[in-house]
């Protein structure tokens, strides 16, 4: 197992290298010019050109890529060309809100989606199952920002229970921290049920295989025992898979959610960096996200061995 984990970690290096080259190439050929953005609307073409030269953006692609790679290999993600601050510092400043949002969303999603999936499998074919499926399809159909606006209108403006926007660090207290994250997490997690919907049929199938046939009598404690101990355990592998996919989706969803709820996380940093053509920041964030994807996949694979002893690497 240890050698497998080490191999997997080592295999991330070429993946990261390919991602780095791909991202750098994409940004190089994409239209837009950070020099023009920094220079502002009233700048003359000569001003823009002077800034471009100062930033080294007039140098050949390979020289720019080589310099950037050299710095990365030395642990330096570079400096933001817009704020003139180290990219690592910008990411460090923004990572807590994003991880907090993802964690709360994931917890909420698991707490709601897994029991719903179990119930849907248990009551397969019944109106309960169909209602849960309808809910999942409904969630799938609504964009995050629409859910976000509705939640903000109801729970912030009408009932005045929760704040509309912003983020309070965990260091300032658990409730202030949680208060700011509830609405965004519900908005983000609501859409995530579409991913969890995928495991319902598998859960159903595994539940049936474990003896929980929808056509058999469903009364007495034995049925519950079968459902929550045996069927759920059997369904753990696809659930873990879906959670892994969910984390990947959360990273994408956080970009929209953080903008709607004005959370100063990595998602907003990404959008700002793209709009400003702040290449070092974009490259740093994409590298971080790709590393996270690889890490999550690895964790999912390792978790398989814990929930299903038959799986060995």
């Amino acid at each position, binding site marked *: 197992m240890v050698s497998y984990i080490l191999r997997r970690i080592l295999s991330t290096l070429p993946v990261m290298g390919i991602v780095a080259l791909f991202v750098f190439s994409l940004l190089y050929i994409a239209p*837009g010019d950070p020099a*023009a*953005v920094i220079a502002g609307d*009233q700048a*003359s073409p000569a001003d823009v050109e002077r800034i471009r030269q100062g930033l080294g953006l007039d140098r050949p692609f390979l020289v720019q890529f080589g310099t950037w790679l050299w710095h990365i290999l030395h642990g330096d993600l570079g400096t933001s060309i817009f704020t003139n601050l180290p990219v690592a510092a910008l990411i460090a400043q923004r990572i807590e809100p994003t991880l907090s949002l993802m964690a709360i969303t994931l917890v909420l999603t698991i707490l709601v989606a897994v029991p719903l999936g179990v119930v849907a499998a248990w009551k397969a074919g019944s109106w309960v199952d169909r209602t849960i499926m309808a809910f999942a399809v409904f969630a799938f159909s609504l964009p995050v*920002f629409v859910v976000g606006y509705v939640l903000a209108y109801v729970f912030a403006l009408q009932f005045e229970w929760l704040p509309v926007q*912003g983020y309070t660090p965990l260091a300032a207290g658990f409730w202030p921290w949680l208060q700011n994250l509830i609405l965004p997490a519900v908005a983000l997690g609501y859409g995530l049920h579409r991913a969890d919907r995928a495991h319902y049929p598998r859960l159903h199938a595994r539940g049936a295989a474990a003896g929980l046939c929808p056509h058999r009598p469903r009364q007495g404690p034995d049925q519950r025992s079968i459902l929550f101990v045996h069927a759920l355990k059997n369904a753990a592998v696809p659930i873990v898979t879906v959670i892994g996919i969910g984390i990947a989706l959360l990273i994408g969803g956080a970009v929209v959610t953080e903008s709607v709820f004005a959370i*100063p996380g990595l998602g907003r940093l990404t959008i700002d960096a793209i*709009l400003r053509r702040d290449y070092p920041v974009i490259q740093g964030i994409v590298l971080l996200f790709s590393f996270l994807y690889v890490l999550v996949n690895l964790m999912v694979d390792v978790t398989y061995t814990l929930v299903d002893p038959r799986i060995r690497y």
Partner: protein
Amino acid sequence: MKFVKGEWVPGAKAVFEKFADYVPRQEKASWLAGGKRMLIDRVEWVVIPDPATAAAALQNGEVDWWESPIPDLVPSLKKNRNIGVDIADPLGNIGSFRMNHLHPPFNDVKARRAVLMALSQEDYMRAVVGDDTALWKTLPGFFTPDTPLYTEEGGEILKGKRDFDAAKKLLAESGYAGQPVTCVVAQDQPITKAQGDVTADLLKRLGMNVDFVATDWGTVGSRRAQKTPPGQGGWQMFHSWHAGADCINPAAYTAIRANGDKAWFGWPTSPTVEKEVTNWFDAKSLDDEKAAVGRLNRAALEDVVYAPTGFFLSYTAWRKNVSGIAKGPLPFFWDVSKTA
């Protein structure tokens, strides 16, 4: 105020605290001049990218002041008895689009004038700020309304009923024969997007073949600096707007200059415009200044240095427990106070 660097989150939050050792001049503040008395201890400048969220935050009391609410949301803010709404800056803004003077068809003044003849500033202003007529007015010139040098001299081309037949005739005289006109429009800026949509319609009604490039402001920023022909990465039109404070006189008015290569994007060349800019600098009295700017306005419209699309204002909104907000081109924190 002191900038609190430790709490700075670039693009999201900037914090300023009262500088206790600062001694203001014993006079009233006048924008950036005069005695700046800080009546509050701390300002948190929060960036809320989504306007609907910003409106909700103001209504919910999470923020005290929203610098520039979008016109669509102002009616709902006005209905809230805890919120005050007023014009933010009486100097407002001037909408604009620029035509590239280096390449056909707009290297011919007849083509530029044809567009100006057909242009309806009312259409542009309704698209930019809506039907609230207190927020906009037509502008047959280039200088900020209600300022000493404001003039409408030579502005007839922008007044009255739009004459599409005459405009089409003039366009044909310029030699335009249906070649694509690359109109670069930033979609992430509501003002440029709204103007771009109106321009596309205008050009089509003139019989022009519009190559509408919907993109973002970052791309417009780099593309407009290209002097190459439109088919090789260049452009023929882009949209922008200018703060009224910059358009009071020619001193800081980059967009009005017509000194060719040294001019702003579009690179207009008009010796008459440049001569009148110099005359304004040399003017000995306000009357001389007005005369020079009047002639400048006429020349800039005749040569169509750029196309003004109208004058518009914007609102600012605050919680009513905040007072002392001054109207101006910037948010000034001095003299602002807040009660619990």
